[in-house]
């Protein structure tokens, strides 16, 4: 447990600002240390809550807002314990500085892995409660009464025996002079009981609602600084390719184009990581001119080492690797013997292609490298790594780079990788002016960090009663760790830990899970829900197939396979490394009973088993990811020509303690649309190493008319007393298998490859 203590007596600093504020910070080095500081004590703001004399409460959000509602949810936690009036709360977006703004001390301020709420919940409560205790003592001191008689309620301090009260702002100066209690030896500020919460667990609109509806919210490309130039970059069509030569004559004739500069290719022996890969940049005064300038460039490209990469051939290799997967990562009983004795053996192969993220805001970054510290403004999920890689690109120390985080116009994992900021940094230094690098949609689709394609081969044995006695699952995918180690052919515990090694079917007596190897010839990176997508797809589809092969009800069979165990102990199955989303298995155990509960709830709420019109089918899937348990029921309507619509979706989510139920519902609604895209549309292919898609006409995503418009979200309260779990990603994985199962129910067609096309359904 983190140690909390009063760092020091408060420091009286002469602030040039007239306003005195009470400021409470959390410092993390290496433990959580609470400090009362005053006003401009630190050169950099260093606090999580600040209360000004007018009573305005400013709460720091240290995570990136990309639509998941983090700028609302995390401050709600602190505001609740503080007894703040939400209408008087302002949010301040922290720059990248994990030593100050990573209160859990282990995330580097990265916003990914659906971990923001679970890693902030306790520390934000304690910060809010600490501040509240100090305000109560300050009021007591002003009145000359016993602090035990003062209570904070709704932004005021009340002394009920005398009926007096003061606004938070009226005690700020006294509070700033008070010592924070030493929270040592496990002592903690007194937290509210659940029944006393005003905001936690209650639906709140997002704090940016007004700005987003008014067009005044600030995203990456909305930042402007004096003297700024705009650039677009022609990048090698093939990953790790390079420009052999280029002719900029025509480009430079275009009004508004000022410079054409080569960003040097990354040396061949340096892994891609999040670095700029090189290209020819056109720099000028406006986006239109430089885009036309780029079109006018004449460039001769060298394809580099991956010019022969054909995704079609690669897909076949993946299938063979999955079928021959030999590296056993989980083993229970004797699968081969059980298969030999089985009354029935069923096998199937599942395939999921490469995807790209396609956030509505393409990557963009503004960097001013003409000054020190260098300034970055970017819609980044990873402000720390942005500083790190920009510093490296400039040959500077990370301490000499600042990163300001704008709103993110969607991200889905793409904006964890700051290659685009590195490009802007290199160009800014080269031309001696601030530079915004704007990626076009074509750039985003052709130069992504792709979700790796995957193949899985499954084989199960069943006895005469239809009980599953053996389960073999072989999987192969290009690992995202090739970003750091390009020669790595095997998957990682992190990727296998997303729904593969932690197969939830605890009641099967014989289990073998194995992985195969594959080359990585394209830039692979994490994408919303990551490997859970394919693992949930194969597992849930195959379980449904087993049920239908034996005339059993699929949901009954799934419940039988999952069982109701309190926890799943993978160590007993010889699993050596359990990644568990970066968290301890003790704090966030794998709990089959919660998955079963979610499945039962979605079956009940969706009316599973109800009679449906002709051509309709209801399919169900469930999956644990990011510690949450989500079950999804999709109703599909399939027309005779194979076109389909989704009349209704039900989603049951158990994410433990939730902060903003409206936010959870929105994430589930959106996850179904995201899931619908990858189930029906998204597919990246390559020819001679180059990505063949370029924009939304050939990389389509779900539009309003083809996705679900009636998603009913059922928040599960049965385990709300347990720790918060992820919300941003867990809604995605169950959607595609639920849809595939629904299509089977409607048509009898089993679709084992994504995306599911009309031909798959009518063939």
């Amino acid at each position, binding site marked *: 447990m983190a140690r909390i203590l009063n760092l020091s007596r408060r420091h009286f600093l002469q602030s040039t600002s007239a306003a005195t504020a009470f400021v409470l910070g959390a410092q993390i080095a290496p433990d959580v240390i609470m400090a009362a500081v005053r006003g401009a004590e630190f050169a950099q703001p260093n606090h999580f809550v600040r209360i000004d004399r007018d009573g305005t409460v400013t709460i720091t959000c240290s995570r990136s807002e990309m*639509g*998941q509602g983090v700028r609302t949810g995390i401050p709600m936690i602190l505001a609740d314990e503080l007894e703040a009036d939400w209408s008087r709360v302002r949010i301040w977006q922290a720059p990248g500085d994990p030593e100050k703004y990573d209160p859990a001390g282990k995330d580097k301020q990265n916003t990914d892995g659906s971990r923001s709420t679970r890693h902030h919940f306790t520390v934000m409560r304690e910060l809010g409660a600490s501040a509240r205790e100090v305000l109560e003592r300050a009021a007591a001191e002003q009145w000359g009464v016993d602090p035990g008689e003062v209570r904070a309620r709704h932004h005021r301090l009340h002394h009920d025996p005398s009926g007096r009260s003061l606004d938070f702002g009226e005690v700020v100066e006294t509070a700033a002079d008070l010592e924070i209690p030493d929270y040592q030896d496990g002592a903690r500020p007194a937290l509210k009981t659940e029944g006393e919460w005003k905001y936690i667990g209650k639906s709140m609109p997002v704090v940016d*609602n007004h700005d*987003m509806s008014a*067009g005044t919210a600030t995203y990456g490309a909305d930042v402007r600084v004096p003297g700024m130039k705009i650039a677009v970059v022609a990048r090698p069509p093939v990953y790790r390719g390079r420009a052999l030569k280029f002719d900029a004559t025509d480009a430079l004739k275009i009004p508004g184009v000022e410079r054409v500069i080569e960003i040097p290719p990354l040396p061949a022996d340096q892994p891609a990581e999040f670095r700029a890969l090189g290209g020819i940049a056109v720099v000028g005064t*406006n986006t239109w001119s430089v885009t036309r300038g780029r079109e006018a460039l004449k460039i001769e490209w060298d394809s580099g080492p991956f010019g022969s990469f054909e995704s079609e051939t690669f897909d076949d290799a993946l299938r063979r690797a999955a079928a021959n997967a030999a590296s056993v990562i989980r083993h229970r009983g004797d699968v081969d013997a059980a298969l030999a004795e089985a009354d029935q053996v069923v096998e199937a192969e599942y395939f999921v292609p490469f995807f790209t993220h396609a956030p*509505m805001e393409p990557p963009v970054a503004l960097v001013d490298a003409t000054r020190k510290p260098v300034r970055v403004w970017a819609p980044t999920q990873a402000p720390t790594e942005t500083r790190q890689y920009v510093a490296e690109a400039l040959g500077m120390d990370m301490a000499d780079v600042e990163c300001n985080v704008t709103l993110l*116009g*969607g991200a889905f994992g793409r904006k964890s990788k700051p290659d685009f900021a590195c490009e802007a940094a290199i160009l800014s230094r080269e031309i001696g002016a601030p530079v915004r690098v704007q990626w076009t949609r074509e750039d985003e689709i052709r130069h992504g960090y792709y979700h790796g394609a995957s193949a899985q081969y499954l084989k199960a044995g069943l006895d005469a009663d239809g009980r599953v006695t053996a389960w073999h699952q072989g999987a192969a995918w290009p690992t995202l760790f090739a970003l750091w180690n390009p020669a790595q052919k095997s998957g990682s515990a992190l990727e296998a830990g997303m729904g593969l090694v932690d197969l939830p079917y605890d009641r099967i007596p014989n289990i073998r899970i194995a992985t195969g190897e594959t080359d990585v010839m394209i830039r692979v990176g994490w994408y919303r829900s990551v490997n859970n997508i394919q693992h949930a797809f194969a597992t849930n589809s195959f379980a449904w197939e087993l049920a239908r092969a034996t005339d059993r009800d699929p949901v009954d069979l799934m419940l039988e396979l999952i069982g109701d165990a309190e926890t799943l102990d993978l160590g007993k199955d010889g699993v050596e490394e359990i990644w568990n989303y970066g968290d301890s298995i003790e704090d966030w155990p794998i709990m089959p009973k919660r998955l079963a509960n979610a499945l039962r709830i979605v079956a009940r709420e969706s009316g599973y088993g109800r009679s449906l019109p002709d051509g309709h089918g209801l399919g169900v899937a469930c999956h644990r990811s990011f510690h949450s348990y989500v079950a999804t029921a999709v109703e599909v309507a399939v027309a005779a020509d194979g076109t389909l619509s989704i009349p209704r979706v039900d989603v049951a989510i158990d994410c433990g303690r939730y902060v903003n139920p409206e936010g959870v519902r929105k994430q589930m609604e959106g996850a179904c649309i995201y899931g619908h895209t990858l189930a029906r549309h998204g597919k990246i292919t390559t020819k001679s190493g180059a990505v063949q898609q370029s924009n939304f006409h050939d990389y389509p995503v779900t539009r309003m008319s083809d996705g679900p418009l009636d998603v009913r979200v059922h928040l599960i309260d049965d385990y709300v007393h347990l720790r918060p779990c992820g919300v941003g990603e867990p809604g995605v994985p169950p959607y595609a298998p639920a849809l595939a199962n629904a299509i089977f129910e409607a048509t009898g067609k089993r679709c084992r490859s994504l995306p599911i096309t009309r031909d798959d359904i009518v063939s």
Partner: protein
Amino acid sequence: MISFTVNGTRHEVDGDPEMPILWYLRDELGVTGTKFGCGRALCGACTVHLDGAPVRSCTTPLRAASGKQLTTIEGLHPEANHPVQKAWREHNVPQCGYCQSGQIMSAAALLARNPRPSDAEILTAMEGNICRCGTYQRILAAIRTAASEV
């Protein structure tokens, strides 16, 4: 010389008449509520009104605005209280918010010409606006609400 108004203010442009309205707004005027999403009129993030009609500003050249009234999200209502904007907030539509300027402009244009659209008419009008966060069901609900108020 191209002459038109942007949110009621007169502008005269001497530059390239082929420049898409989007980049004139964003890069020349610094009016940034209108967003860039695809550059090919495929996603609707850049939707603005020309004499009240929705157009994709990323592919509509400046010359097409000649003599017309151009309205962006900033000019839809002085306090951002157009019925569509109010309904957007009532239904908590936005997630990342990036596409929402374009969504709101498409919805406002729909209701201006068809104050009581059917759901099918809403879907048709909004088909060109992509939301990758997946807020469509709230967009539909918000347009239904706004339709009862315009």
